[in-house]
């Protein structure tokens, strides 16, 4: 566990629609949010606050560190992750979510860009997006872990008294 939130640029969501975005009366059902990093990173966690997105796909652009000449490749690391169990109702619509490294289909190492593909099949919502997108990096082995505050309330293991040290 680590809390190294990465500096990254989150681009504005782009709607994917058939037909002209401006003249078409139907609202888009797919948005794409691109997040770019200044250099390649190893991801630990992607966290965000949902705003009426029903399903999420995540794609990563990875570079191969061994052969930097070959270009970056796009891979899907999360498919159809459900955020709202029933897209027409409010459940999960404004909740906070985290996607951890362990849930991803591939190891999210040497990533230069993250693409979040948002889908909302229900037509009852006017807008949908993700807010407060934060991406955390994997820490090194010796990094200081920030422990939750309740750890300090656990009773300490009692050490047996060293009787020989007690002088009479």
């Amino acid at each position, binding site marked *: 566990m680590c809390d190294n939130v990465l500096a990254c640029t989150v681009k504005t969501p782009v709607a994917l629609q058939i037909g002209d975005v401006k003249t078409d009366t139907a609202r888009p059902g797919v948005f794409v949010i691109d997040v770019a990093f200044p250099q390649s990173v190893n991801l630990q966690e992607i*966290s965000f*606050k949902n*705003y*009426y997105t029903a399903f999420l796909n995540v794609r990563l652009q990875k570079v191969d560190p061994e052969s930097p000449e070959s270009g970056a490749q796009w891979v899907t690391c999360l498919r159809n992750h459900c955020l709202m*169990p*029933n897209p*027409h*109702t*409010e*459940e999960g*619509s*404004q*909740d*906070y*979510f*985290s996607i*951890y490294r*362990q849930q991803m289909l591939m190891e999210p190492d040497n990533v230069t860009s993250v693409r979040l593909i948002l889908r909302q099949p229900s*037509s*009852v*919502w*006017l*807008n*949908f997006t993700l807010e*407060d997108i*934060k991406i955390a990096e994997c820490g090194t082995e010796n990094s200081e872990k920030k422990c*939750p505050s*309740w750890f300090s*309330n656990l009773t300490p293991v009692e050490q047996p008294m060293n009787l020989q040290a007690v002088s009479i």
Partner: protein
Amino acid sequence: MMDEGTELSVTIAQIVQKLKGSNLHSQLERQAKECLQRPEIQLEDLKEDVKEFLKKSGWETKLQNAVYRELNVLPPPSHPEAPAEHIKEPLAYLRKAQGSWEKRILKSLNSMCTELSIPLARKRPVNEQKELLNKWNEMGTDEPDLSHFRPVYAPKDFLEVLINLRNPNYDSSDQPSSKSHWGLIQVPLKVKDIPELRESFAELGLNSGQLGIDDTTQVPADVFESEHAGIGRKVLIEQDSAAAEQYIRQGCPNELRAELWALILNATNEPEDILYYEQLKSGVLHHDLLVDNLIYKDVKLTASNDDYYFVFEDYLYQVLLCFSRDTVVLEHFNYNSATPPKSYIQGKLGLEDYAVVYPPNGVIPFHGFSMYVAPLCFLYNEPSKLYTVFREMYVRYFFRLHSISSFSSGIVSLCLQFESLLQTHLPQLFYHLREIGAQPLRIAFKWMVRAFSGYLATDQLLLLWDRVLGYNSLEILAVLAAAVFAFRAQNLMEVTSLAAAEAVLADLSTLKVMPLLQIFLFATIM
């Protein structure tokens, strides 16, 4: 979301923190120390032997009951990023609506205060304290002048607020059609339909025995009733809350109900609880609060006029006046979408150091509030026990009936569930009532806000509240409301105005609750 292992650790840590330093914790420590004298405790296996002793003497069950109580009440573990307000209520527009509603109530209270020139709180002079102490057991005989007081709000005011709830992100431009919702609530919350309700309320099915159906005189007692009572007695001997909660889903025999409810709610009546109640009572004697007058007025208007509950008038004062001063109730605001009103010491408006919660328990009573306590008076005659059980029922269930939230047992979900059930299964009736200007929710709302107290006969109400405790949810109130409409559907189809519809549904005192629920859930052709 966090994986299951982490979620469990967080829940365990939360419960440990809550129970640490509680009365039960010190009792367990004392028991563990005292048992060291016993011969069966050996030094080699000290930890195991002490644990074995605690299990045999029933203390482990008490701890299990306390943990189970916390599990029933704790909201699910949330994301570390989620702020406290998100835990109280995840949807921003509902939080906003609750905030405006609270401001309105507070404004109404403050204006009443200024109009009548009565302070929010004042210290009683010594002779008045003595007088009140003498009259403590018969406060009902007092006839103070309450004509200038009016209830801060009534359920119908709250209904208007709920009707006006709108999600700003919801597309309501579509023309009303058969697909749209015909009812008054326009919030798209998830509610269960009949197949899902059948699964949730499986124990109410046609194949299981029920108290309220299988204990009538026509059915011989040995078919179900006496065996069920025997199981109930066993559950009470074991003192296990979780088992009691499962047992009571099929109803509770009258003679065991008081103890079973106290067991399920983990409401104890130890000397410490009695002492705490006495402390609250002395708080009532020392200070006079404005809300006390509101309580008096409410009891006089509602419970005193009720054929079943007027005898308990004095008990109601003894419970509700103490309830207003109990700061333990403030803990439930962690999972309640409401926020307790704050008042500031004169001249220090806005400074948090000079803010005090008013009333001390953060709950402003409304018209009909005393009806939450009245049915409990049939079960408990000791004021401190009655008080503890009521307080536990309030912080688990009743608060959800008058705060705006998206929770599945909250009043908004209950209203939506009632309307959905009616629209899906009695569309002709719903359409007819809409056409004559009698929206069904306008009639059913007052039943649900009071959890049917004062509308059903008392024995039927207690059978209904058995199920509320057994399923740890208020959804059954919405199902019952729909079942009542289904039962009186034929009469309702013939009425031509809202007043006539209200008249058809004015008297529910002859209804039998369990057959209605069973028919509606399990015998309706879909």
